């Protein structure tokens, strides 16, 4: 008999709030987290709205102000999510043997803006910026010397561009020395991390894992997504599965789950939110070569992903009471996901409730997969499915039962959380109401 894995702690900071309950309330009430971008000027960007984390106070998540110099936002949100999740799971530093707690963390590989990059390059070489910043003879514009102390980047700053730094800061802050893996993908890595933690505990390598993903909003991604036609240009939040959807809106945040072996959780009297019973992560070998768009056959890989997660859990499609969809709001992605759901669930596709949260938070890239899993767990706990905001009319040929307007009260035994990545990396996680 393989080991059972349960969720015993949740933590999230997102555009919807800086605690799990705030987030959950906003999801149920469909309170919007998308707004004009405040953290950097945007008037020449193609898209000026996003879901930003608001009123973020690093100190309240155990982050020392001195450390902020070497922490980009991705790292800060990771620390915040983990701090909340470990607290929620009632785990203090003294309660665990450091080498017994594992970490699986997902981020995107690029974590700096183009300007930061340039500054670091020039500063390192000690190049006088004169040649670069003003025309010859232009005395009004004095040259800028990059050795100017006011301009200096912190000597450790280059470290923050490495994709494993979020994980390392988590390990240091909470003294976690156990097994670990830092995953990177444009948007699936948060869910991949949860899948990895689940499989590691079930396999028996470790009893306790903290897993999740984080992302800090960055101009690089806005430009890149916009030029790949992934962003909505109507300057309004995304509309998952709606007929008029035209792209996603970016968001930022961090979400973490504490996963634990059942016996271990019971042994220490931990609160149990739900059980995780299956997962699948795979790729769409026939993906688009741009690595940014779904191919026309992407639904095949998506349905394969859902099916193998169900198989991993030993379930049939009929057992599933709720689908937390990826629903990123781009024309291709949602239509592929809808096809995949219809393919797997067949006749019952029209009756299983489907919801997507990205209309409220924006697409938080790697953090989204983890946050969607977190929301799914809360849906199971409370028997409540949050509505999909901005969805008014489904494509005419679709049979999906998308929950709109207001939250649906429903006892949920099994739920699936989909994360379908733009670059063809897909993850599905199956959760179950915890019954002794």
């Amino acid at each position: 008999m393989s080991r059972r894995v349960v969720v015993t702690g949740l933590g999230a900071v997102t555009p919807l709030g800086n605690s799990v309950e705030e987030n959950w309330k906003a999801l149920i009430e469909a309170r919007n987290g998308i707004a004009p971008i405040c953290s950097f000027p945007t008037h020449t960007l193609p898209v000026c709205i996003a879901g930003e984390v608001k009123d973020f106070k690093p100190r309240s998540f155990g982050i020392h102000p001195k450390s902020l110099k070497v922490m980009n936002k991705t790292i800060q949100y990771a620390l915040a999510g983990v701090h909340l999740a470990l607290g929620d799971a009632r785990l203090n530093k003294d309660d665990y043997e450091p080498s017994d707690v594992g970490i699986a963390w997902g981020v995107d590989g690029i974590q700096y803006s183009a300007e930061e990059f340039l500054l670091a390059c020039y500063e390192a070489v000690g190049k006088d910026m004169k040649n670069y910043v003003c025309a010859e003879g232009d005395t009004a514009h004095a040259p800028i010397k990059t050795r100017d102390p006011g301009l200096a980047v912190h000597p450790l700053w280059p470290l923050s561009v490495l994709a494993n730094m979020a994980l390392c800061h988590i390990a240091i802050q909470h003294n976690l020395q156990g097994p670990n893996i830092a995953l990177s993908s444009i948007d699936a890595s948060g869910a991949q991390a949860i899948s990895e933690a689940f499989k590691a505990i079930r396999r028996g390598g470790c009893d306790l894992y903290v897993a999740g993903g984080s992302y800090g909003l960055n101009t690089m991604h806005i430009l890149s997504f916009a030029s790949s036609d992934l962003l909505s240009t109507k300057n309004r939040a995304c509309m998952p599965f709606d007929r008029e959807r035209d792209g996603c809106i970016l968001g930022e945040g961090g979400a973490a789950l504490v996963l634990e072996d059942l016996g271990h959780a019971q042994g220490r009297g931990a609160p149990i939110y739900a059980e995780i019973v299956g997962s699948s992560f795979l790729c769409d070998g026939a993906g688009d070569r741009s690595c940014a768009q779904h191919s026309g056959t992407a639904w095949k890989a998506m349905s394969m992903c859902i099916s193998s997660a169900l198989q991993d859990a030993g379930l049939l499609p009929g057992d599933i009471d709720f689908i937390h969809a990826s629903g990123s709001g781009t024309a291709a992605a949602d239509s592929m996901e809808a096809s995949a759901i219809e393919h797997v669930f067949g006749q019952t596709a029209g009756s299983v409730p489907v919801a997507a949260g990205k209309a409220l938070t924006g697409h938080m890239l790697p953090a989204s997969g983890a946050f969607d899993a977190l929301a799914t767990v809360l849906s199971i706990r409370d028997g409540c499915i949050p509505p999909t905001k901005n969805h008014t009319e489904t494509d005419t040929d679709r049979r999906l039962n998308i929950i709109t307007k207001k939250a649906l009260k429903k006892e949920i035994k099994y739920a699936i959380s989909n994360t379908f990545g733009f670059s063809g990396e897909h993850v599905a996680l199956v959760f179950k109401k915890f019954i002794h």
Partner: protein
Amino acid sequence: MTAHFADNRWNRKENGQKRVVITGIGAVTPLGNTVKESWHNLVAGESGIAPITLFDASQYPVKIAAEVKNFDFDGCVPEDINPYLGRGTKFCIHAVKEALEHARLDLEKQDTSLMGIALGSDEEGAQIKHFEEMFDVEHIRDFLEARRSARTLTHPYPHLLNSKLLGQIWPIRRSAHIAANIVSILFNIKGPISTSASACASSAQAVGKAMRTIQDGDADIMITGGCDSMIGEFHVSGFNRLRALSRNNDNPEKASRPFDLKRDGFILGEGAGILVLEELSHAKKRNANIIAELAGYGSSSNAYRLTASPEDGQGVDICMKTALRDAGCTIEDVDYINAHGTSTYLNDKSETAAIKNVFQDRAYEIPISSNKSMLGHLIASAASIELIISALTINENVIPPTINYEFPDPECDLDYVPNVPRKSQVDTILSNSFAFGGQNASVLLKRFQ
């Protein structure tokens, strides 16, 4: 609570655990563009380190690196995606081809949904020329001034907006995961996929992940390993600022000197190392050539500091112990340790201490060598190339040397196989990788029996 852990930990070597073997290898390194060539030069004790040619390094404090030479960049990828892909990804595709050929795998005949990819990589090394094409001087000036005076930008991002180029190549196509994605597309692989980006331990973690994926029954075959190319102004200066790089610019081939008293940092390198892992019964069924068995894996964190590992090896030793336990081996079984051995003062000292923590008195009897003395530090691809070398060590019964070992360091007093290769029967190898930030991974390799 701790007591509870003790009950059910590490008893997973129960009946029927799947065995994982290596059936194909491929590599692009500073010592050669194939496994054969790299191995040949490695056992000859050659150095792949030379002055930097990828950018003008004349004003940089570090002017040397281990670059891949004479590589056919255009020949290895389809034309339509060629401009989008960085050096590392191209090395990767080349090495995957070599490894699949070596494994005699005909993908047309395989169920590619039971074939997966787990790669370790980093973002593509950016060179400043890529960015200069995209920015205009006013923008840079404005940014720098705003940064100094903490005012907001007056005309922000105008040229970013106009730069379709930036949007197209960055970051969607330059991020760490792109190598795995492109491999999945070019080779039509549909199974489990993941990219681990943990700096210097990336590909060790990828191999560990691949091994577990096979053991879990999620795939029969995994393409795993790593690729990297970080030789650009940004990373060279970044690592230099951390005081991690050797500045021995006048003697490039002498610059990387792991465990030697006069070591002064590592040398940034580039390359790719790919292994085909296979579930044992699957490999036997198709009569595959089994190179070695991947018997154990372990990972850990130092949870200490971002840039330094603890001098007493605390935390670093956990992953070695875990890998041994995972393989069901004792310290007596290990015949050779393929060290991380970066040639930085702290790493080599800390690794030596950690090896002593784990192996006690036996530490002095085990030959230990660092391939980085010749290859440089290939960051995300380092671990996978060192595993390939370890597999060949088992097959050829030759331990590659640690070159440039001249002045013994009293704090590093183990047997580092100095300067000349050693003929010796080697059946069990522990390969170590430790990353910036304190992520560690060890892989245990065994002669297949």
